[in-house]
């Protein structure tokens, strides 16, 4: 058993435990923090697979941004009790479907011959020449061959950002005035 396989198993265990916490935990906030654990585990998997840029992007985006945004929206959509029943009555059916999906996917992967297809190797990650597929190659290919999809993706992000602001904005004029002028109590405490 090689060293990278051991690292992979440890990271997989972290990821799967985190993911199970996301879907099974009775506490909303803890489920979100378990999401953070699962996504950092995925970042480690990316590192094992020599995708350094993606590992960093994963930590920045999911560890930093997404978890914070989700926590904020949990705070803003909070009802009286956090520990209300979080699950549907369709739980058994959901478990059945999930297990069926796992079995189906696993059977497909095990029986597929993608490892023997032209141009793939199923032996191990070739160590020596992977060093060149780091940041430089990703940047080079992304900005030369994939420049137009990249620009479209940035446009999608811009539209999503504008849409999110427009949707989440309060259209109550009293609220807007309060935000603009600041609440008098807060100003009093400051001085």
């Amino acid at each position: 058993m090689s060293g990278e396989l051991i690292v992979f198993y440890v990271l997989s265990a972290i990821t799967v435990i985190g993911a199970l916490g996301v879907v099974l935990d009775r506490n909303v906030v803890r489920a979100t923090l378990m999401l953070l654990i699962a996504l950092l585990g995925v970042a480690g998997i990316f590192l094992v697979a020599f995708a350094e840029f993606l590992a960093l992007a994963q930590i920045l985006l999911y560890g930093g941004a997404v978890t914070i945004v989700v926590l904020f929206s949990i705070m803003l959509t909070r009802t009286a009790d956090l520990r209300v029943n979080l699950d549907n009555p369709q739980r058994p059916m959901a478990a059945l479907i999930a297990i069926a999906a796992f079995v189906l996917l696993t059977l497909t992967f095990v029986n597929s011959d993608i490892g023997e297809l032209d141009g793939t190797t199923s032996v191990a990650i070739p160590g020596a020449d992977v060093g060149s597929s780091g940041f430089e190659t990703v940047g080079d290919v992304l900005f030369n061959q994939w420049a137009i999809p990249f620009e479209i993706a940035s446009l999608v992000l811009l539209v999503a950002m504008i849409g999110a602001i427009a949707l989440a904005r309060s259209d109550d004029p009293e609220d807007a005035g309060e935000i603009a002028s600041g609440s008098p109590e807060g100003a009093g405490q400051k001085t």
Partner: protein
Amino acid sequence: MDLELIHFQILGALLFSIGLYGVLARRSAVLVLISIELLLNAVNINLIGLAALVDRPPDERVFGQILAIFIITIAAAEIGLALAIVLRIFRNRGTANTDEMDLMKW
């Protein structure tokens, strides 16, 4: 025994199934959304595993990583927009639970 493509695929399948369970079983819309994040990450693991193991020159091998970058981009856009919609629904209807959003149910 070395790290092989099948390891990445099984891990991706496992993560995908867990996320699928979360999407189907959770009531809170926010929890459904973070389960969708698990689904997208399962796909990314698959892509990265293939990108690491395909036997090609480096500038072709990174295609998997490039696709994963686009998936992460779309995931970020999706979660921002979807959480804004959930927030809006909560403000208008007072609930963030998917089984109570039945306004358009016939």
